[in-house]
């Protein structure tokens, strides 16, 4: 009896284990992602056809900040394309980066993803064959005539284009218009004016920080570095640096690093302990009126224009060059659309992309997502903030002559050296000369490893 009981219990345990290790249950939720069912057609993993020849595509995005807006976009697309269901999962860039690679490699990933199109992100996936070239789709849907041509170049690897740019961004300096007006501060027209303004604000007795620059996460330094380098070298000069054609350890690089990360710090431009302040802390200082300026990018327009987040009013100027003159505005392509190599429904995916970059979507990207689309949009008649209109006009007018967001185009190893190095320069433990030398070493390594892209015209 004891033996029989033992056998029965063992069998029951094994049966339980076997059932727990059973096959795919069709759950499309991924770790770290927020799954949203956009239709009533069920939630099976992308690719299975339900009854009525409906096709389901799985879509990963980064629009958690505009969740309702993206759901509405998907609903409109599905209404116009009743044979297609879109299942959406939203991630942050930090969680999507490692997960997307693994998911695509396993064949279980999304059909379409919204991802950084730079060489360190989409470039890696393209080289591994995990995402498919879109040259045919560009021709078929006429995307060449729609989006800015340089955005196509930014997502081209080995002569084939792998992404459709969706989000443009550029770098500038937000400033609090009310504070400037009340205190008689003028928008600087030269680098020297900028330093002088910092001193004026510091000495004003208002307790206001001249800038809300914060470098806790380490990457904000990329933006100020890009601003200084573009003003120093110009668009073509920066292109040559990024492409490895010009050495990084030159006096102009040293001077650019010295000016912002040493001289501006000593002039009192930064809040105290800038390396310990989170990026959100800096944004909060500006939003609350405790800081007068903030050099960062256009991705913050939504936050600084939202009356629920701030009662202050902001405009933007561009960090001026030494001696004055026309600044070179660093701009670039943020994220865009990439398509899995293993998608079973490429036609439907391309239809969705075509919808997402349609003329009708242009104003929605601006008003509902606070993002600048990668194609010209007529802002007349659009009900949006002055900051948004300013950004659109800048991009429209300077799309082909903007400078470069350096870190978007340089290899990951180079960026790691740049990020740590600039933080150390701010902290006073590294000299600009030493950093420039380390950047050259990092670039040499990247060139040897074949990680450098050529963006020279």
């Amino acid at each position, binding site marked *: 009896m004891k033996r029989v009981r033992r056998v029965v219990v063992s069998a029951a345990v094994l049966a339980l284990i076997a059932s727990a290790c059973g096959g795919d249950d069709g759950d499309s939720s991924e770790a770290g992602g927020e799954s949203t069912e956009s239709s009533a057609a069920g939630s099976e993993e992308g690719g299975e056809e339900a009854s009525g020849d409906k096709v389901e595509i799985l879509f990963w995005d980064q629009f958690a900040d505009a969740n309702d807006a993206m759901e509405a976009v998907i609903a409109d697309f599905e209404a116009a394309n009743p044979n297609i269901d879109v299942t959406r999962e939203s991630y942050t860039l930090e969680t999507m980066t490692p997960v997307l690679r693994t998911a695509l490699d396993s064949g279980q990933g999304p059909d379409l993803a919204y991802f950084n199109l730079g060489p360190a992100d989409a470039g890696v996936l393209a080289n*591994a064959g995990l995402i498919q070239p879109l040259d045919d789709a560009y021709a078929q849907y006429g995307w060449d005539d729609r989006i800015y041509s340089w955005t196509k170049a930014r997502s081209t690897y080995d002569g084939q284009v792998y992404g459709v740019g969706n989000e443009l961004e550029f770098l500038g300096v937000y400033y609090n218009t009310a504070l400037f007006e009340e205190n008689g501060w003028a928008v600087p027209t030269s680098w020297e004016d900028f330093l002088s303004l910092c001193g004026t604000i510091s000495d004003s007795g208002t307790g206001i920080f001249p800038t809300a620059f914060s470098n806790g996460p380490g990457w904000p330094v990329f933006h100020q570095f890009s601003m200084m380098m573009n003003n120093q070298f110009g668009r073509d000069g920066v292109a040559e640096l990024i492409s490895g054609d010009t050495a990084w350890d030159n006096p102009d690089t040293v001077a650019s690093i010295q000016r912002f990360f040493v001289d501006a710090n000593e002039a009192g431009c930064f809040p105290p302990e800038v390396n310990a*302040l989170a990026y959100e802390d800096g944004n909060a200082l500006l939003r609350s009126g405790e800081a007068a300026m903030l050099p960062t990018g256009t991705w913050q327009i939504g936050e600084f224009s939202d009356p629920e987040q701030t009662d202050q009013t902001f405009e933007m100027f561009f960090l001026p060059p030494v001696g004055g003159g026309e600044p070179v505005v660093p701009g670039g392509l943020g994220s865009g659309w990439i398509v899995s190599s293993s998608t079973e429904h490429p036609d439907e995916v391309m239809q969705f992309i075509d919808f997402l970059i349609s003329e009708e979507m242009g104003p929605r990207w601006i008003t509902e997502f606070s993002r600048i689309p990668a194609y010209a949009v007529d802002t007349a008649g659009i009900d949006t903030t002055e900051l948004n209109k300013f950004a659109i006009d800048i991009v429209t007018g300077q799309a082909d002559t903007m400078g470069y967001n350096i870190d978007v185009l340089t290899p990951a190893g180079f960026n790691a050296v740049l990020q740590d190095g600039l*933080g150390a320069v701010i902290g006073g433990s590294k000299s600009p000369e030493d950093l420039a030398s380390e950047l050259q070493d990092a670039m040499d390594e990247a060139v040897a490893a074949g990680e450098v892209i050529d963006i020279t015209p």
Partner: protein
Amino acid sequence: MAATMSAPVARERSAFGYKIKGQLGSIGFVVPAFLVYAVFVLWPFLNTIYLSFTDWDGAEQTKNWVGLENYRDMLDDSAVWGALKHNIIWIVLGTFVPIFISLVLATVVWSKVKGTTFFRVVYFMPVVLAPTVVGVVWRWIYHPLFGPINKVLDAIGLDSISRGWLGDPDTALYAILFAAIWAYFGFAFVILTAALGNIDDSLIEAATLDGANAVQRFFHVIIPQLAPVLTMLTAFTLINGFNVFDIVWAMTLSAPTPDTEVLATYVYETAFNQSKVGYGSAVTMLITVLSLVASFLVIYLRERDSEVAS
């Protein structure tokens, strides 16, 4: 004769058969757990060893064998040595400080002070917090502009000491370590409190009668009886010190600097941010070897000392 001779043989065979059959049920329960262990621990471990000999970027379909190249690169990588230095600091301070604090507190609480249960609960509470939560809370405590530490220092005229604790290269690692010790010592406290409950009171009484004072009783009677538990705690904390990741990651906003980088965060940076999975795997092997060697040394030295003592 034959019947007599066959009986003991039959009993032996039967006993042996019974031994195997009797263990079938036990084996049946162990095998599933081993299978889970093999799939989720052993296989990834063996795979990591393999990857450490490749230049895989985490995405390519093929993994190119590069032999010992990753290990040679690791020897020349100053970032690895810098991170290892931080791990050693973490292990030394992060092992002995919380164990010492918890040993003292456990001994005091064990001596039946009032509020024993209250103190046990309070000291253990930080342990139940997720490392990420600990990181977020302490980031706020250390905040250079709004954090209570700097506010208090400024209020009492010590504003020369207040600083960006997590941004200052001289204090950042220790600030994170302090938060980690705060979150961990309660665990050691609970373990030691339980161990103290098994102390032989008669030995303490005997020592008291022999004229030993409290300090002498503590070091010569109590500590020796706690030795196996202390060895286990030390080894456990040592291994955690080599593997530390989450609290460092949380408190540096996912961007450790050369002043706060530890081996595990460097593995993440190289493997996932720089697409050098092969190289990251090699550094992971370094962590594994160091953890094993350190644990072995601790246990070996402890066992040798106990043999000498006996």
